[in-house]
């Protein structure tokens, strides 16, 4: 299979315009006749569904939550980047493009990344128009702050609730189109299979999570906007319901999976405190603007943080990366924390954390200013830990966070199955091997609002003439039957262990071998271990209740069955890539002082995996750097 990225011709700054000029259009009367399914109602899904509906398409939007407003975009705290250069600090589209490409360690496409930066400024205009109450100066202009991996201030924010405010704007716009009867919304509905007819995506099989009924939906195109899959680690910053099932079903039906192992481990989450823990809460990276990260210089220091004098504190990020300091990119900050914790300098009850200290910031700017900037984050920290972080430092620890990997898509955001699109976190497109802070809300929104509505027409223009799919097609019959059998199989095992038991087992293996630091023998061992977990799951899992009712245990089991298979692919991908790049750190490839060694001559490609009956075949999209010369990423 040759992977055609469909990058338009021309100079970097002309590519998107050149694409739009040549893309085929559909007249309004014909748009009405075309149906589009959007799976997921987060920023990308709601943005796409509402915008496609505004353009005149007939849209059906699905989410597993009880309302579109719950999608996990809601939890993003810190902000959204845009090259507005409002701070007059030398920012530009090109600089933002370069920061993003470099932040991703040169493992993404130039053209995609440039487009992301190019569309960032109009996106802020859009959200302001939709009523997002971004932070403002007294004079009424918009405020910016810095984020990791960047030396300008280009992050827009709404207190520590930026994701919530953007999502609610998207949700409002979505419901505006529900009222206009152009979008039909299906909450509490989970996609369990993709239906492919004559090689094209033509519908989905959905389980109604209230009645358990399987339903068929046909459409002229299917858009997946299902978010990240880091719950494969079980403990992550993601919502408990986040899953990789829609992606996995699409993968099994022929969509190639891009860079599955590229997972961002976020440096500032709350540490794990017990085995029963279900989730690791994120503390926004924006805290690193004013907070300083440190551990005691002395091993097993039992003193309280405030009792340790300045000269006995190791501000290790400032020490190792003097030019970026506490704002080093996430992958680097996480690895540095892991290095200190593994070396025995960790703090907290389980010695698995580092300090994030605001003492100096409070002395410098005053308590009120810090409260104004991060008040709700400090409140949240206190609610969860019972600790007042104005008085003593926060304890933070790395946690699985963002999936840079996802379904491989071309410049049009179409997967390798014609008519199947993947937008937002669930695709592999702009972030390469590491995502910069505040680029996630950006990518989700830009994909949904601006890119997909301008590319989907190029495909649908030819679908007007073909017959519209109907749900009585044998492929729907077949998919529904297979889904039913899959559910019945899980329910009849009646073993001795719970779904969560297997998820904890999977999580341990993935965290140990396929997270911040990876090596050949560990990954090989992990693949064997996960296969054992898979076999045990299918012979010994116990799910009570039946399939014709709301059954949350069954939902978990179905998601976990897919996570287990996805885990094998992630380890396979990490094993294949014999270099260190971005978040992918192979222990065999590092300098003497522990920095990553990238191997451009052998690995300057996007790995795109094809599913082959339980095995995976590798395809490569070679990355061509026409405008930028990949350099050694340094934040020193």
């Amino acid at each position, binding site marked *: 299979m040759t992977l055609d990225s469909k990058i338009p011709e021309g100079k970097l700054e002309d590519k998107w315009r050149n694409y739009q000029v040549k893309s085929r259009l559909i007249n309004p009367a014909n748009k009405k006749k075309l149906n589009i399914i959007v799976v997921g109602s987060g920023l990308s899904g709601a*943005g796409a569904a509402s*915008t496609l509906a*505004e353009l005149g398409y007939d849209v059906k939007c699905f989410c597993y*939550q009880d*309302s579109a*407003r*719950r999608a*996990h975009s*809601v*939890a993003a705290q810190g902000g959204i980047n845009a090259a507005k250069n*409002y701070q007059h600090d030398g920012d530009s589209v090109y600089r933002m493009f370069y920061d993003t490409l470099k932040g991703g360690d040169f493992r993404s496409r130039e053209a995609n990344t440039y487009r992301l930066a190019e569309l960032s400024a109009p996106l*802020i*205009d*859009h959200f*302001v*128009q*939709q*009523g997002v*109450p971004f932070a*403002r100066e007294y004079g*009424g*202009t*918009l405020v910016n702050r810095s984020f990791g991996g960047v030396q300008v201030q280009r992050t827009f924010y*709404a*207190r520590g*609730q930026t994701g*919530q*405010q953007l999502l*609610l704007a998207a*949700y*409002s*716009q979505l*419901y*505006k189109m*529900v009222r206009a009867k152009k979008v039909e919304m299906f*909450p509490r509905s989970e996609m369990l299979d993709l239906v492919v007819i004559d090689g094209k995506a033509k519908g989905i099989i959905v389980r109604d999570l*209230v009645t358990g009924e399987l339903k068929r939906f046909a459409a002229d195109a299917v858009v997946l906007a299902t978010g990240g899959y880091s719950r494969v680690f079980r403990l992550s910053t993601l*919502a*408990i319901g986040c899953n990789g099932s829609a992606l996995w079903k699409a993968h099994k039906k022929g969509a190639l999976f891009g860079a599955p192992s590229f997972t961002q481990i976020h440096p500032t989450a709350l540490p794990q405190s*017990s085995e*029963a*823990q*279900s*989730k690791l*809460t*994120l503390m926004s990276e924006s805290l690193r603007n004013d907070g300083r990260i440190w551990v005691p210089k002395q091993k097993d220091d039992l003193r309280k943080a405030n009792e340790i004098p300045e000269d006995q504190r190791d501000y290790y990020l400032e020490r190792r990366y003097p030019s970026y300091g506490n704002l080093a990119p996430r992958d680097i900050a996480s690895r540095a924390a892991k290095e200190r914790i593994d070396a025995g300098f960790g703090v907290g009850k389980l010695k698995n954390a580092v300090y994030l200290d605001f003492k100096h910031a409070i002395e410098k700017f005053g308590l009120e200013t810090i409260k104004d900037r991060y008040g709700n984050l400090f409140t*949240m920290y206190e*609610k*969860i830990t019972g600790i007042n972080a104005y008085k003593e430092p926060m304890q933070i620890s790395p946690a699985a966070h963002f999936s840079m990997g996802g379904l491989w898509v071309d410049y049009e955001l179409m997967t390798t199955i014609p008519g199947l699109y993947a937008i937002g976190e669930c695709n592999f497109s702009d972030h390469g091997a590491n995502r910069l802070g505040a680029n996630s809300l950006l990518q989700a929104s830009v994909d949904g609002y601006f890119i997909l509505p301008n590319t989907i027409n190029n495909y649908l223009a030819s679908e007007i003439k073909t017959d519209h799919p109907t749900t009585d097609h044998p492929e729907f019959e077949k998919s529904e039957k297979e889904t039913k059998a899959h559910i019945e199989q899980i329910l009849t095992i009646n073993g*001795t262990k*719970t779904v*969560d*038991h297997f998820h904890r087992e999977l999580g341990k293996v993935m965290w140990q071998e396929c997270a911040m630091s990876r090596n050949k023998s560990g990954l090989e061992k992990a693949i064997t271990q996960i296969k054992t977990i898979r076999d045990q799951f299918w012979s010994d899992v*116990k799910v*009570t209740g039946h399939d014709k*009712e*709301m*059954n*949350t*245990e069954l939902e978990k089991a179905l998601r976990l069955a897919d996570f287990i298979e996805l885990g094998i692919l992630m380890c396979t991908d990490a094993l294949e890539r014999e270099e260190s790049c971005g978040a992918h750190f192979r222990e065999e490839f590092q300098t003497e002082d522990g920095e990553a060694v990238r191997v451009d001559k052998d690995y300057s490609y996007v790995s795109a995996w094809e599913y082959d009956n339980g095995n995976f075949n590798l395809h490569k999209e070679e990355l061509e750097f026409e405008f930028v010369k990949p350099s050694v990423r340094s934040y020193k």
Partner: protein
Amino acid sequence: MKVTFKIWRQEGPKDKGAIRDYEVDGLTEEMSFLEALDHLNELLVLKDEKVIAFEYDCREGICGQCGVFINGRAHGPHDNITTCQLHMRSFNDGDTIVVEPWRAASFPVIKDLVVDRSSLDRIIEQGAFISAKTGTAPEANAIPIPKEISGRAMDAAACIGCGACVATCKNSSAALFTSAKINHLNTLPQGKAEEHKRVAEMTFQMEIEGFGSCTFTGACEVECPEGISIINIAEMNARVTKSRIFG
């Protein structure tokens, strides 16, 4: 840590439902309340019983999906938090903890502790938006919005839509929810064009959905995880009057 849960079990919307007792051992203070329920569910599976249906998603207090009555209070014993932010350290060893779903006619029970809050989505549908299409926006800094104005809009916009305000209100009023959204949009210059229509239609929908009237007891703001003030309701009422005169 060992506690006795008294939990509302109800098979479906038409079932009568009843409280059932569960003695649970092996809990720790660090566990969140929802993790304690997870733990109980694992024990139930191993005893071949159906799990308790309860809602959650983000487990960090922002998605608004979780929410149950705990010992007679929405989201448990503390003010202004979500159920997922409640930890077992707030209870004592040997405690009895009563867990019930939100009780409101407009939030019918689906199963056990899960209720249907789609009535809130339908209020949003009636005008909680700015009718501007993607692609039509002017430059973001073209309309200055003073810090205090955007701050006030943000205070109201913080609502997570959990429904605790409705559940705790003796009248099952959705006035805090509705007023928060109206004030968010009507405070901003972008929302001005549709301000009167928005107020009229959203408050009308609130009544159609069967939510009760507000009698200013202030119970809602105590339970609101975002601490949204009942001043919002007073402001909404003023806007209703204004919209009747000028709308």
